[in-house]
């Protein structure tokens, strides 16, 4: 009995000494700031920042702070509030970045984009895209299987059953970009949320020539360039038969919306009835 106790006590003592020495000698020194930054971050581990999780971003932020710049690193979920706190903690200044939101650039609902074929394979956009053009004649637009809605961790996207297109819930969307990555047709884009959530964008990505695109979908951008001509701010470019509005230059005058013959350019959250006076007011507000 006594022998057993002594033997165990000796083993315990030796083990304790070894553990003590090892823990001192091979201690990994982690910057305490990393832990503190991580506490500030939302902890969603969504990957929207480009790192595997919040700890990755925290490490990168601290490393960046040591080098003197945390430019390009940001948490899309926490937004400016969280990044402000992080910057305070690290003694850095951050540039105010505009809040962004996911925008679905396809307006080809069932009415404007008729089905020309029936797909009965695996019901995911990725599989459907791998087989070709999908159920409509448009080889660029939304496939409607909802890979984006499934990828959203925040429940910010849902498929509209009437149109067959995804809809973004702007209050929930954190602009993490998961849907942008998963969409095989690259329809979803992160765009500036805009003042009062007002945005103007081209809701089409069809690169076919005008006639072909129009045949496939009534709401397609036909690359006519009318929007480019009316734009006073040089915000619109037409490349490969598709118009694109640069959200950093767009002043939301909505001239292009009125000029677009196919209504491919859409505006959201604008008051329904507007007059010139009000338009001027809006402009002043923005200025």
């Amino acid at each position: 009995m006594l022998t057993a106790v002594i033997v165990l006590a000796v083993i315990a003592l030796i083990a304790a000494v070894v553990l003590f020495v090892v823990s001192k000698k091979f201690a990994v020194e982690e910057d305490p700031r990393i832990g503190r930054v991580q506490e500030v971050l939302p902890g969603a581990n969504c990957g929207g920042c480009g790192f595997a999780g919040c700890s990755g971003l925290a490490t990168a932020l601290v490393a960046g702070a040591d080098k003197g710049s945390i430019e390009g690193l940001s948490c899309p979920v926490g937004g400016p509030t969280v990044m402000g706190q992080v910057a305070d903690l690290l003694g850095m200044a951050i540039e105010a970045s505009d809040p962004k939101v996911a925008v679905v650039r396809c307006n080809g609902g069932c009415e404007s984009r008729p089905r020309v074929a029936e797909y009965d394979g695996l019901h995911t956009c990725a599989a459907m895209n791998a087989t070709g053009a999908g159920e409509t004649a448009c080889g660029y637009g939304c496939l409607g299987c909802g890979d984006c809605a499934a990828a959203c961790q925040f429940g910010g996207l849902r498929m509209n059953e009437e149109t067959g297109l995804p809809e973004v819930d702007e209050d929930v969307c954190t602009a993490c970009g998961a849907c942008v990555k998963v969409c095989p047709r690259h329809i979803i884009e992160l765009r500036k949320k805009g003042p009062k959530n007002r945005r103007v964008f081209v809701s089409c990505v069809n690169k076919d020539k005008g006639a072909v695109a129009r045949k496939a979908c009534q709401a397609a951008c036909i690359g006519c360039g009318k929007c480019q001509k009316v734009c006073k701010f040089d915000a619109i470019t037409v490349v490969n038969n598709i118009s694109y509005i640069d959200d950093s230059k767009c002043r939301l005058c909505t001239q292009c919306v009125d000029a677009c013959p196919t209504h491919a350019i859409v505006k959201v959250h604008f008051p329904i009835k507007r007059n010139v006076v009000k338009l001027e007011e809006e402009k002043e507000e923005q200025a």
Partner: protein
Amino acid sequence: MKLHTFKIGGVHPEDNKLSSDVVAVEAALPKVAVFPLSQHIGAPAKPVVGKGDKVKVGTMIAEASGFVSAPIFSSVSGTVAKIDTVIDATGYQKPAIFINVEGDEWEDRIDRSETLETLANHPELTPEEIVARVKDAGVTGMGGAGFPTFIKLTPPPTAKAECVIINGVECEPYITADYRLMMEHPDEILVGLDLLMKAVRVEKGFIGIEENKPEAIRLLTEKTAHDPRVEVVPLKQKYPQGGEKQLVDAVMNRQVPAPPAIPVSVGAVVQNVGTAYAVYQAVMKRKPLFERYTTVTGKRLDHPANFIVRMGTPFGQLIEACGGLPDCDNKVLAGGPMMGKAVLNLDVPVCKGTNSVTVLSGADAHRQSAQPCIRCGKCVEACPMGLEPYLLATLSSLKDYDRLEKEEVTSCISCGSCQFTCPSHRPILDNILQGKGAVMGIIKARNAAKQTK
């Protein structure tokens, strides 16, 4: 007579060779012929003609643009209308050359006579010369995958070819193009085999034919009776015997290891009968690859038929020649029902690899709805590569690519036996193809990263 076959897996789909006895006829010339620039595995060809250029039958219109690539030749005479995009059999928009057809004027160098040229009369044909002519004629595998033939004829220095196997298996249901070719041009195919054997410097040739084509077996056995180097091997009917690894197993009783190993790693060079015929024409008649045997078939078509088709002819025209689409739901496939791919419209042109246009009608055009997996293991039994399809499908849908790679997803030959045999009609192959594509991408990126280091 003992019949050979491959050892693991395989299924027995309904035969449905509706057009076996229909003699192949030349299809009418199209009004506009469309030539997609990527009709083969590898880099797309590069156009060498521009809008307004006059071309003849056999004029090169696009040149090979890399080592793994093949030139494309016009199958018609006329004027180049435009270089634009077309949706090809893959479903994607691909760049293509459009030619307005005017008359039927051939290049002078092409020998259009029917006389049979044999290797004995042409001692000047060295192996190098044969490979060069095959390469210059744009010959690619005619069985479907479309790998440039000259590459197969120049095996890597690590491997040594021992024999040439001619693939006359045609295990896909419905398709009869290879069978008709064997019945109508056996002598040319045998000269083609001679040329292939000389090109890879071997003295042994096999011709593998399934037992459901007894006439072809009889005919070719007769024709090769005097030649001890060539042996016709009758094979038991089993899908996918036409897969080259399965064929090597069936004929030589050797197993091709997992990728990157290829049949020549175990000493076999496998070529389709259509390729052998194309090689004959390319070498002996200086006729580049612009024409092929294509079956147009379907249970509800008025008269399923075999055509000698100029490439670039739209599917719709061939279906019209068989009586038009039946008046019901139809699914038009480029290829057979097991591995063929549904096309999006009937303007899709016939390419080098289009061995068949299959029209599935009515209930056949629709899939049955998927039920839960009942763990019966039939897919595992059916897989000719010894994989576990149910597992690969699940891993693919979970996007577990590391595990998927460990489970050898890259060995999958996409034959569809698993999905065919599944009693729950699960989309097993669809899932696996997704995962396989992703894993191939990862491996490619990894290799590229290694090379830049």
